[in-house]
């Protein structure tokens, strides 16, 4: 069956998205996943008394997206048994709308909130208190098997989550991750918007990805308003997005060094991360890029003086990062801890639908910037590079590689900075449309899907942070590892709790 092709950052009338019967929907999605398409989003939204399921598939090779939908009343045959990358989405659908994906192998809540509809997938009475992470866990039994529970409050300055390890001695047989402590109800609060809070929700979905999520949102509103941001605005957004990547990747390399007790790089990178944040502040006054990206463009222009200063600081900081990071690869006590630790195979990464540097480190070639390019990434091409080992070393080296490429990219974009305005008015959103925007944030693919109602208000807004795909990858990485390597493996993914919990 043919599905309409949609480009990244475009909208189309909802009625043009084919509505299939539930069995056809299942068959079409599974057939495409078998042929290598990726499930970027799969979500439910209320439609009368029923729930409309929408699937967004990426055809990375052709740079196109495909949408299809169906309607279900109470249950449908789960996709997960044949397409494991659907597993978390189907748990989300069950929790949000009380729809049961029949045959799902591990159907549990993911955020621990009451259902948004009158149904409940687990048959709980309305009003039953829901305690976060109080649920059944996968258990290994046998002599000398023990269970270790960690969190929600962790030892460092870090967000809350619960980790349950099944161990035999020091070896982890299985790790189960339960989240939901950070759930703030953002998707529900977006319905009926946009309003003065909307863009601020985007900037605080995951504070370390302020630019990424704000860019996806701006792209959605521009698609619905049928305008394009100016070339200059796109260039400034891309510079900010790469600075966000530089700050976080540098911080992560420092933290990885810290987790194996190699303090020089830990100490230097901690400082250098701040230098990149201060470059973002040079663009807009805020270290996290708050208030910079807005529908229609960006709120602050870059003066020639500031551009010059940015390039100077960028290269100076990059030299210091190189100096700090080179020590990692030269120090046997570091490489011996990185090499072979927390391995995720290429096959697992692809089947689970991992994204971002974690997927690329396992040999899965995908990067929104090169596969579904938007804005400045259409004219300044970035190579998509993969590594094969899928271990901590590969995830660390992937960051270093991306740091180098981001510095080159920013330099190129600044030197060819287009002239023109940086902002424009965006007309009200088109009615009964669906828009899709994808951005390669520093953790990987950010996917936003918006559906408007008869008045052009947001009827539904679906956010998929890369962490949503990748938390399970982290659980896989821990299998047959020493439990003492958990902090190292965790940091090598460095996933977002609030980006997942929304």
């Amino acid at each position, binding site marked *: 069956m043919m599905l309409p092709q949609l480009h990244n950052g475009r909208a189309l009338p909802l009625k043009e998205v084919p509505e299939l019967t539930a069995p056809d929907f299942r068959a079409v999605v599974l057939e495409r996943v078998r042929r290598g398409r990726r499930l970027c989003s799969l979500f439910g939204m209320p439609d009368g008394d029923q729930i409309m399921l929408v699937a967004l598939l990426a055809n990375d090779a052709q740079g196109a997206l495909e949408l299809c939908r169906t309607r279900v009343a109470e249950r449908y045959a789960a996709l997960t048994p044949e397409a494991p990358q659907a597993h978390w989405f189907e748990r989300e659908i069950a929790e949000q709308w009380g729809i049961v994906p029949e045959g799902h192998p591990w159907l549990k809540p993911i*955020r*621990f*909130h009451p259902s948004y509809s009158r149904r409940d997938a687990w048959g709980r009475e309305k009003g039953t208190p829901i*305690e*976060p992470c109080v649920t059944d866990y996968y258990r290994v039994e046998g002599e000398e098997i023990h269970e270790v529970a960690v969190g*929600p*409050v962790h*030892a*460092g*300055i*870090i*967000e*809350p989550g619960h980790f349950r390890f099944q161990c035999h001695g020091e070896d982890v047989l299985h790790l189960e991750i339960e989240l*939901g*402590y*950070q*759930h*703030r*109800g*953002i998707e*529900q*609060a977006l319905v009926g918007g946009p309003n*003065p*809070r909307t863009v*601020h*929700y985007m900037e*605080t*979905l*995951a*504070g*370390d990805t*302020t630019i990424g999520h704000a860019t996806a949102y701006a792209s959605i509103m521009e698609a619905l308003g049928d305008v394009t941001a100016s070339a200059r605005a796109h260039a400034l957004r891309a510079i900010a997005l790469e600075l966000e990547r530089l700050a976080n990747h540098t911080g992560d390399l420092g933290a990885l060094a810290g987790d194996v007790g190699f303090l*020089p790089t830990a*100490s*230097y990178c*901690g*400082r250098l*991360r*701040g230098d990149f944040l201060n470059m973002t*502040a*040079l663009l*807009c*006054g*805020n*270290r*996290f890029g*708050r*208030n910079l990206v807005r529908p229609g463009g960006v709120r*602050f222009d870059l003066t020639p003086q*500031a551009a010059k200063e940015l390039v100077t600081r960028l290269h100076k900081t990059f030299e*210091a990062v190189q*100096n*700090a990071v*080179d*020590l990692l690869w*030269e*120090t046997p006590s570091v490489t011996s801890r990185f090499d072979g630790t927390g391995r995720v195979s290429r096959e697992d990464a692809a089947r689970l639908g991992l994204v971002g540097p974690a997927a690329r480190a396992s040999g899965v070639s995908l990067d929104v910037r090169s596969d579904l390019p938007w804005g400045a990434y259409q004219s300044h091409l970035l190579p998509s590079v993969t590594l094969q080992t899928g271990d901590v070393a590969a995830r660390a080296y992937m960051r270093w590689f991306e740091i180098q490429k981001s510095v080159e990219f920013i330099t190129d974009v600044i030197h060819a900075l287009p002239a023109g305005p940086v902002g424009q008015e965006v007309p009200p959103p088109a009615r009964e449309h669906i828009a899709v925007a994808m951005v390669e944030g520093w953790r990987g693919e950010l996917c936003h899907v918006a559906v408007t109602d008869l008045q052009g208000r947001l009827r539904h807004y679906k956010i998929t942070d890369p962490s949503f795909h990748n938390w399970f990858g982290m659980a896989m990485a821990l299998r047959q590892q020493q439990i003492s390597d958990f902090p190292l493996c965790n940091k090598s993914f460095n996933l*977002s*709790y*609030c980006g997942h919990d929304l």
Partner: protein
Amino acid sequence: MLRMLRARLKQGFRTIAFPDKPPTLPQGYMGRPQCDAGKCAGNCAACIEACPTGAIARRGDTLTIDTGRCLFCTDCTDACPTKAIQFTSEYRLAARTREALVADGRPHVPAQVLDEQARGLFGRSLKLRQVSAGGCNACEADTNVLNTVVFDLGRFGIQFVASPRHADGLLVTGPVPRNMELALRKTYEATPSPRIVVAVGACAISGGVFAGHPEVHKGAGEIIPVDLYVPGCPPHPTTILDGLLRLLGRI
């Protein structure tokens, strides 16, 4: 080894002189907002309507801005037809009471020091346990930054510790989702008395942009008593450090 030493030399000395010297803040830094009553047209509500968190209210012929709710987003300055609202470069935003966070035209009084007994206990050594309760990782990140060589928190005797049992107090970020309420309460109870609580960021003070959601509380103060409020979204690290040092009487 030689390479490591060479790298050390190249990286240089990076600790800032603050608080002995004023901090370097980014150009365009948005600090404490203020309303110029002379410029305010008085008969419009553009800023009040534009504010995403309801931080602005009219009191007589002037406006009050609650920095405990403010996201420092400048939506109000964009909306104001007479440019009566301004974000100053004042970074000393922390206060000991919720009321002192409201900018109402009177001179701003930075946070006051703890009482004599508490200062005697914590003044030279303060161990804090950080609890993220719905924080978006921005307040967390700019708190964590205090541990880097740039701010070198250790030189003031302040340290973040891994267990509430080892702590003199909590530093809370985020609006406190209902799903984190019990964990926050238990962490507080596990901290030996006397203990202090620092609420960092608009969310932890008032619920921030999430205030009013059924899924969250309106900040840490709804669950546990707060001794120091540090406004911002997120606050600049210097603002957090300034607040902590004032609390301990070190500034």
